[in-house]
């Protein structure tokens, strides 16, 4: 049996799946208002009720996760905003890898590679925008000024476009892309093979295995 290293802890995986399911619901019930011709599906407000229920889950899940995993949260947020020269190298080498499967030029990566980090950054920023503008539209509907509400829709749309397109890419890489097999295992079982970790997350692999036995 190949050696495995833990990539995502259980609470992180639970948060990921809770957030993914609620965000997919939010995405789809939002999409019907965005694409002309689909709006008719939303008649009688039912998609908007689902949107609110999913929004509640989307907001409450991290509120439970954060105090229980405070250190991991701080580390994770810091990571999203730490960018360096190797990120540029990764972005240059990425098309060759994702299209052709050639990874010779990929610089050694941390726990998150540049692409994952970019997505994580989009998730963080757009979630904050979506939640704030969404709450204003939800609870300020009868009290906020029409101009305020309209600009909230506008901002909600920008975050929706960024996060929605990113979501498609995220699901594609996690589930469909022919080379991405370990990422699915990482987010379901929590571990990736030591071999894969060495190749794709060299910096992180060194850190976690320093002075430790790799569990088998």
């Amino acid at each position, binding site marked *: 049996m190949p050696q495995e290293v833990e990539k995502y802890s259980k609470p992180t995986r639970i948060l990921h799946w809770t957030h993914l399911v609620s965000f997919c619901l939010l995405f789809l019930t939002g999409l019907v208002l965005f694409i002309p011709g689909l709006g008719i599906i939303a008649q009688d407000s039912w998609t908007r009720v689902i949107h609110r229920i999913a929004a509640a889950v989307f907001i409450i899940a991290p509120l439970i996760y954060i105090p229980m995993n405070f250190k991991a949260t701080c580390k994770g947020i810091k990571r999203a905003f730490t960018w360096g020269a190797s990120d540029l190298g990764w972005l240059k080498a990425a098309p060759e890898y994702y299209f052709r499967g050639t990874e010779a030029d990929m610089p050694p990566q941390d726990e998150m590679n540049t692409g994952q980090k970019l997505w994580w950054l989009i998730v963080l920023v757009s979630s904050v925008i979506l939640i704030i503008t969404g709450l204003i539209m*939800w609870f300020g509907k009868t009290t906020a000024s029409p101009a305020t509400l309209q600009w909230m829709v506008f901002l909600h749309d920008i975050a929706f476009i960024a996060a929605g397109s990113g979501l498609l890419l995220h699901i594609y890489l996690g589930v469909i892309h022919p080379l991405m097999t370990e990422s699915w295992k990482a987010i379901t079982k929590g571990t990736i093979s030591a071999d894969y970790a060495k190749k794709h997350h060299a910096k992180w692999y060194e850190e976690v295995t320093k002075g430790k036995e790799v569990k088998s």
Partner: protein
Amino acid sequence: MAKAILYDTTKCTACRACQVACKGWNELSAEVTTNRGTYENPPDLSPTTWLKIEFREIDPGGIVRWLFTRRACMHCTEAGCVKVCPSGALYHHELGFVAYDKDICTGCGYCADACPFNVPRSDRNLISGIAKMDKCTLCTTPGLDRLSNDLEPACVKSCPSEALQYGDRDQLIAEGKKRVESLINKGWTNANLYGENELGGLHVLYVLDDHPTVYGLPADPQISAATIAWQDVMQPIGWVVGGLTVLGLGLNYLVARASVNSDKEKENAARS
């Protein structure tokens, strides 16, 4: 041929027959009102009050004037509500009006925020978000459609002082201009016809004896900047970004699968 309503403020006696006829014909329930020291009631438009007469008291130069204005949907040609409605519940009627199919309203309330005249009203549950909008349909509500049955709108039918007229828009503009001219000749130098060109032309025209703002009407109604930024800029950007993402992923899949397969083939060939 576009139709319109012409409302002449100088002929209106504020009898509010139009208000009652609107409720009667459109099966809208009455509202409990309180005496607020004015004949004006209910205090505002609502899901069951699509039309109301507003009362204003002003005293320019010490002479008190009691002004009446009709408040209801203006049926704009460039209608903010139609522009933002995601389900097509709000649409332009062939006669030019902003018609409304309540069945497919999603309750999003975008129309209310986009309306330059603050007309649409919703019954709304704030927590669940369940809502339905209502506004004047100019008597084109399916099942209660007066216009296609060659009847004039209920409000016009009920008006005893001919302050309300219904007819071809072009004719009514000519008629309105004549009225304005005669008012100017009588000394009402600020008299004007409101609605001829505003927002591409309103389908409710007003003969006013003073500036629109005196009657509580915006002097230069516009589609809001947010509506344009959102509908004309951000949504198309969204379709392009989303479309390119899907295309790019499809392309990537085809190329990546081909190269993975050819790599495998090479491996197999090397082995055998």
